[in-house]
């Protein structure tokens, strides 16, 4: 077990991509989260998965309990705006009757799940029924209206024409169905961020069973951290069955260094925000959620 102050605890870290052509075609990067959930469902490790599905507006996610491969595939690609995923956590065990719940989400959602497992406040039957949690790397999240402003006002694209959104190389990329790529400088996106994200001390979903994201791996590949016994078992089996191509993280560019750098940037910045909250007004502090 490796322990890093910024990357959390993990058993191993590799660079990987799915070998499933259909998943890869629509994947944000290496299709890891989708392929893992589909595998877990088909193996009976989970009975269904809570994912960020399609909402009533373009690119507005809606939490959704997926019970089939097709359902999970519908939730592919990062939406970069809020999906109250965990609101279905108890409901999935009740209305959907799931005994083994799979869940994908960003860092704070993993925090909510693990807190619900250790301190199950009004969460009857939840702690033992979370069977598999896949976390995503997350720098910051946006309200839906922010994404709308960024895509429609700043990038000058209609949200319904967007094929893929992506953050990287200091820019926000908007790819449209017709092949146009519009960009917005990262610094213009900052003011649209969700304020709650500015006290988050996790970049790579430290509390997930397996966490994944594009940073650190070449295009079309994902960096994968295997963190728990459950995660390790599922990952080893899936790799043995040929579901993923893998490369040692040490052999790919840009590698773990950039992940560590970004994690450090996020966490150090947010620690500073926590510090600033203490001196926000005149003799009046804002709450520290970790105190």
């Amino acid at each position: 077990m490796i322990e890093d102050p910024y990357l959390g605890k993990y058993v191993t870290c590799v660079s990987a991509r799915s070998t499933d052509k259909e998943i890869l075609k629509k994947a944000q990067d290496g299709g890891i989260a989708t392929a893992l959930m589909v595998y877990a469902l088909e193996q009976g490790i989970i009975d269904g998965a809570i994912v960020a599905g399609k909402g009533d507006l373009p690119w507005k996610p809606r939490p959704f309990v997926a019970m089939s491969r097709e359902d999970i595939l519908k939730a592919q690609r990062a939406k970069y705006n809020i999906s109250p995923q965990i609101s279905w956590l108890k409901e999935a065990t009740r209305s959907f009757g799931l005994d083994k719940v799979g869940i994908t989400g960003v860092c704070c959602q993993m925090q909510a799940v693990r807190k619900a497992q250790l301190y199950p406040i009004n969460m009857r039957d939840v702690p033992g029924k979370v069977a598999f949690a896949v976390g995503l790397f997350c720098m910051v999240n946006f309200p839906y209206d922010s994404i709308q402003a960024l895509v429609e006002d700043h990038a000058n694209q209609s949200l319904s024409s967007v094929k893929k959104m992506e953050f990287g190389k200091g820019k926000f990329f908007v790819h449209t169905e017709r092949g146009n790529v519009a960009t917005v400088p990262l610094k213009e996106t900052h003011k649209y961020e969700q304020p709650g994200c500015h006290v988050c001390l996790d970049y790579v979903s430290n509390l997930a069973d397996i966490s994944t994201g594009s940073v650190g791996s070449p295009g079309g590949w994902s960096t994968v951290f295997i963190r728990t016994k459950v995660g390790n078992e599922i990952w080893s089996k899936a790799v043995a069955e040929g579901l993923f191509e893998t490369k040692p993280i040490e052999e790919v560019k840009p590698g773990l260094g950039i992940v560590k750098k970004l994690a450090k940037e996020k966490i150090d910045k947010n620690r500073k925000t926590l510090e600033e909250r203490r001196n926000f007004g005149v003799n009046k502090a804002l709450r520290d959620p970790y105190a």
Partner: protein
Amino acid sequence: MELLKKVEATKEAKPVANKIKLGHVHLSGCTGCLVSVADNYQGFLKILDDYADLVYCLTLADVRHIPEMDVALVEGSVCIQDRESVEDIKETRKKSRIVVALGSCASYGNITRFCRGGQHNHPQHESYLPIGDLIDVDVYIPGCPPSPELIRNVAIMAYLLLEGNEEQKDLAGRYLKPLMDLAKRGTTGCFCDLMDDVINQGLCIGCGICAASCPVRAITHEFGKPQGDLNLCIKCGSCYGACPRSFFNPDVISEFESINEIIAGALKEGEKDD
């Protein structure tokens, strides 16, 4: 003969000397919390076998007067027009090392906050207060009803705190601290706490767990943030307790895998003797 010997052997093998004394004090509540305690099934029997003696419990133990206890689980709120209830809660405090408010009625008043009297026999019984308004409370277990798993975790951690080795005491103390802080925080709990202490503080991340924990489905999400229907809210305080931004002790929660193993281990230990 064989059977008798086996029974004798089992009796001696059980560690009875260091069991803690556990009691359930029933005030104005619906007995849902007690059902939750019992809903730990074999886990509850294991706790009673190896870790705790149930020394007081109106429905499960034949004891009339509140005895000395290590841990008192108090269910329900106190009707202040009922002299006996007021005496009971005072006596519970006097005779217990740790008083736990079991469930939302004891912690926050919950649904009994809405009582207006008018019941048969006692129409004058109308004011129901959470126990924290009358005595000092050490630990809160919010929930309507509280989940069996949280009761189990607190029972095992309380055992470790009182009877464990140094390392276990340290872990149990760290685990119980947020629930002790909730007890210090106040005796009201409702969606407003989420509004005041999380949303208004710019801390909400829209994860949705408040909606999941709400027993009356009073919480929806609008513009990515929780929206509470205050006409539905029963003041159970669950949403605030469940929110990762109300309390989050990273040093304990990030150990979720090993703590779950410790708890599972504690509930299995007795089985090896059988």
